[in-house]
């Protein structure tokens, strides 16, 4: 009887320890979330407080100036839109095409595994390296010294292509092979399976990857500093051959000015950059939900 009591006592103790451990981890995870979100909130609040007073129509529609209160963001904003638009046009077909080929068509031999390994490695190369590559190959070789939007977009394409390929591959891998088998059983050929089954299923995942990659392209300043180097531009790019500057480069220049007012202008620039980023994410979510709310699932 006594012995039985002690074992049940022991069991209760073990149980209590387990419950404790469970609670400790819940608290730790909640703390992790709070730290992340509080940091982000503090950052956003700081930027909003500094930047909002400067954010008006004049700021959106004028060019940069040596006087903070007269400065505007038109040229870098237009430059960023050009760069991201052209980068998207170049990256999506090439990146998605590569992923489809590697996942659906290529045989799994040693050579193709080597290609995949190298794509994964390329995703980790620092962005400055791509800037130098772009300067040598696109600016100096392809465009004969012209530092234009196309050279910038091509460089950004190289930079984010590995990310797009990997994300698209993962999205394609996530499509259950039973779907493909079913389509093959109905007599579809490979291209029909890809077009009718794999792509529609993988599209939401691909979009997330593409938008994340493009967001990285928006935030990069190092390669553009090498390709363009311009920080005072008083025109909007009108063709792919125009000179340009981008938001992060302009923000970086403003922050490093000695005059205090430029920090407010820089904060306003950061808000614009955030809005561009968030609206791009919004488009991605919209496309995702559009394709996910299909009646046959």
């Amino acid at each position, binding site marked *: 009887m006594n012995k039985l009591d002690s074992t049940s006592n022991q069991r209760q103790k073990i149980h209590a320890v387990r419950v404790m451990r469970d609670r400790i981890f819940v608290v730790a995870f909640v703390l992790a979330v709070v730290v992340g979100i509080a940091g982000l909130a503090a950052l956003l609040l700081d930027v909003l407080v500094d930047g909002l007073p400067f954010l008006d129509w004049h700021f959106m529609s004028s060019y*940069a*100036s*040596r006087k903070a209160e007269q400065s505007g963001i038109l040229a870098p904003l237009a430059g960023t839109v050009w760069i991201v638009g*052209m980068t998207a*046009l*170049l990256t*999506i*077909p090439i990146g998605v095409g590569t992923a489809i080929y590697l996942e659906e068509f290529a045989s799994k031999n040693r050579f193709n595994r080597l290609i995949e390994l190298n794509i994964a490695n390329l995703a980790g190369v620092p962005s400055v390296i791509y800037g130098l590559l772009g300067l040598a190959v696109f600016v100096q070789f392809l465009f004969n*010294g*012209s530092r*234009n939007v*196309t050279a910038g977009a091509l460089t950004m394409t190289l930079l984010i292509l590995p990310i797009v390929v990997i994300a698209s591959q993962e999205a394609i891998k996530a499509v259950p092979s039973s779907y493909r088998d079913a389509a093959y059983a109905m007599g579809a050929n490979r291209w029909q399976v890809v*077009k*009718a089954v794999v*792509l*529609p299923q993988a*599209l939401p995942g691909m979009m997330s990857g593409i938008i994340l990659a493009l967001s990285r392209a928006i935030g990069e300043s190092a390669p553009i*500093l090498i390709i*363009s*180097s*311009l*920080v*005072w*531009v*008083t*025109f909007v790019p009108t*063709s*792919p*051959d*125009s*000179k340009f500057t981008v938001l992060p480069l302009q923000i970086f*220049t403003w*922050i*490093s*000015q*000695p*005059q*205090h007012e430029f*920090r407010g202008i820089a904060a306003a620039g950061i808000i614009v950059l955030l809005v561009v980023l968030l609206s791009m994410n919004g488009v991605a979510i919209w496309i995702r939900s559009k394709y996910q709310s*299909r*009646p*046959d699932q």
Partner: protein
Amino acid sequence: MSQGALNNVQKTEQRKLSKLALTLISVLIVAIIAACGGGESGSGNESTEITIDGSSTVFPISQAVAEEFRRDHPEVQIPVGISGTGGGFKRFVTGETDISDASRPIKESEAALAAKNGIEYTEITVAYDGLSIVLNRANDFVTCLTIDELKSIWEPNSSVSNWNQVRSSFPDKPLRLYGPDTDSGTFDYFTAEVNGEEDASRSDYTASSDDNVLVQGVSGDQGAMGYFGFAYYTENASLLNVLSVDGGAGCVEPSVQTINDGSYNPLSREMYIYVNNASLERPEVRDFIEFYLNNAGELAEEVGYVGLPQADYQAQIDALN
């Protein structure tokens, strides 16, 4: 019937997808055509563009002058870049840019490249910058140091870590150092003048390429010493104490006056622009350079630098003609 519905759904799905793909491809084609066409139209208006690249230290002056110049000449585009003095010269000596901003004179190796490429140029001094050595606001025991004392602090392998090692009359307070990183022209100049050899410096100090970070560091650290351009001191004069420097002729504090008349010695340096002589033949470039020299004094001071004596600007304008 349900099979028919499923088929329909799949069909519209396919149609949607192929429409998306079609739009993407057509936009891509348009973009490529535009890229090819743009190449031709782009070269047409090059004559009304003056390209400037180079030092980010000189950038605010060039930007200010270009901004004012465009008020009267809106048809001239003057994009200004910040590749750095060396990066700017790399483009300048191949004839890619019309004007190069520089915070130091052109090096022999760069001049040799220019000569090889048949590029002739004119050096123009546009303003002064006084390298300012700053201390924390709470530091009330140091107002002036000699160049030798500065050298004992900043030279390579220096072990000075307390103010009483600098001068025995100073209190026992830890000395912490803040300065620009090794890529900076300010670093090059300071090491050359103080340590006697360019780029020779102790490396155990807090380095940043952003001078505003250095301002924050020094203003928050009681035993701190740091150095950067004059503009960063004047903008933050209420947060920092500035150190007078004895270069052999007594203690001199950096100010517009002492930098302008050359008595803040040896830590005031000249800012240059280099103009391609072939570009100078173009009327808009000549107009711009004359405008630059006529207004640099005033505009340099507006962005935190110090102008030359007026006679020096006039002499350079006369030399152009």
